[in-house]
């Protein structure tokens, strides 16, 4: 079912690209994507054809200094990573807003500069708040 949906999506993307010079970029984007995927598929195919095969029960054990691993590795991890991820989200969304601005700085002039200053200031305050609250401290 999922495979069918994915196939449908790919067909739609390909049919929307009417390979003309106007949207050459998006078709070339697809070419690069397919090149990357085919590098892996071709490489793995060649390796499967060329490589020797043998069976050994120890091949199936997780690598951990030679002793059998205990319990699952899908466990809880340090909460610090989570905090940084949230902070990252804040600044990443900011970057999305700043990129269009970057192309029109000259046309907007000083008034545009003042408005964007407030935007950056609010973000800076956010960072300062997180810093003050100790979110940037690795415990």
């Amino acid at each position: 079912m999922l495979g069918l949906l994915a196939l449908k999506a790919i067909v739609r993307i390909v049919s929307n690209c009417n390979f003309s010079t106007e949207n050459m970029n998006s078709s070339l984007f697809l070419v690069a994507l397919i090149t990357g995927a085919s590098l892996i598929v071709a490489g793995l195919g060649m390796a499967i054809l060329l490589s020797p095969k043998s069976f050994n029960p120890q091949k199936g054990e997780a690598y951990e200094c030679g002793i059998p691993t205990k319990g699952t590795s899908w466990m809880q991890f340090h909460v610090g990573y989570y905090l940084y991820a949230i902070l990252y989200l804040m600044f990443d969304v900011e970057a999305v807003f700043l990129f269009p601005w970057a192309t029109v700085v000259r046309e907007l002039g000083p008034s545009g500069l003042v408005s964007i200053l407030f935007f950056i200031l609010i973000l800076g305050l956010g960072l300062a708040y997180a810093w003050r609250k100790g979110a940037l401290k690795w415990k």
Partner: protein
Amino acid sequence: MLLEISHPLELIKLTASLDSFLHGLLPSWAALLIEFILVGVVLLAMYAVIALILIYAERKITAFFQCRYGPNRVGKYGLIQSVADMVKILLKEIIHVDSVDKFLFYLAPFFVICASMLTFAALPFGNGLHAVDFNVGVFYLIAVSSLSIIGVLLAGWSSNNKYSMIGAMRSGAQFISYELSAGLSLLTVAVLAGSLQLSTIVADQSYVYHWNLFRGHLPAVIAFIIYLIAGHAETNRGPFDLPEAESELTAGYHTEYSGLQFGFYYLAEYLNMFIIAGIGTTMFLGGWNAIQVEGWDGFNQVMNFIPSYAWFFAKTGVLIFLSLWVRWTFPRLRIDQLLNLEWKYLLPINLVNLVIMAIIVVFGLYIK
């Protein structure tokens, strides 16, 4: 720039004549299909060759830094050592551990390789030599290159191994943190350049003092230094190689990968180093433009004789050498030091830097 196109060694003439030849011979859809296949083959070949050259170069240069010989047995000066390594890695059996999440385990390399391939395709290698040239090029580079972290996290999670898990988490935290700095420093230059299209940005940097590095005075230099640090950290190398710290985590997120599966991560790591240096060249050092000084006509003629792609690879090579130098000089950081450097130093400096650059641009104080 018209002068350079008439240059005998420029490849743009070759591609243009090939294009007209194919269109004259075949219906347009068939010609386009053949061109797409050619573009794919060229990208693949460059991808592989650059990785091979970089692996050899890194091993030789590292050996030089550490007062030893490096590879010197296979071929003259060990020149075909990395080819031999590649053949060996192709002949290894592809295995996976019983406890892995198979689907995600095999899916992960696709993200890593496709992300670097998509970024690679957008680099302007020379005059007219770029596969993808969006009008939002800089944004595209940042968006696409950040896809690779999904692959790394998938690899660490699906391996069901504690080392992989810790490595992937560290790698995730490091990558997303430093991506901010890299993005903001590129944004600073985009403000100066006034465009996000890579071909326009390169074309605007004709004379040496028009290079974005010199054109924006001190803020541009600060942005360049921050970009170098952040880009270096994004590739998980040098003093920032916590995700694969051998002494604590064996190999980090790719501990469970072996043979060619591991080879893909290795390939992507070297290509990412090249891509980071390539973006740095394009945005700060004038891209494929020759070194040209206004008024020195004889000098400019000589410099123009060297084709544009040679300039691109030379400048990129300098930045890669810098990256290797840093990698083999500084000791590894701790995770809290790493995150402090980003969040308490680079990011605030970057925000202030961006504002100063905006003021310079709005009041027209940059070199026109």
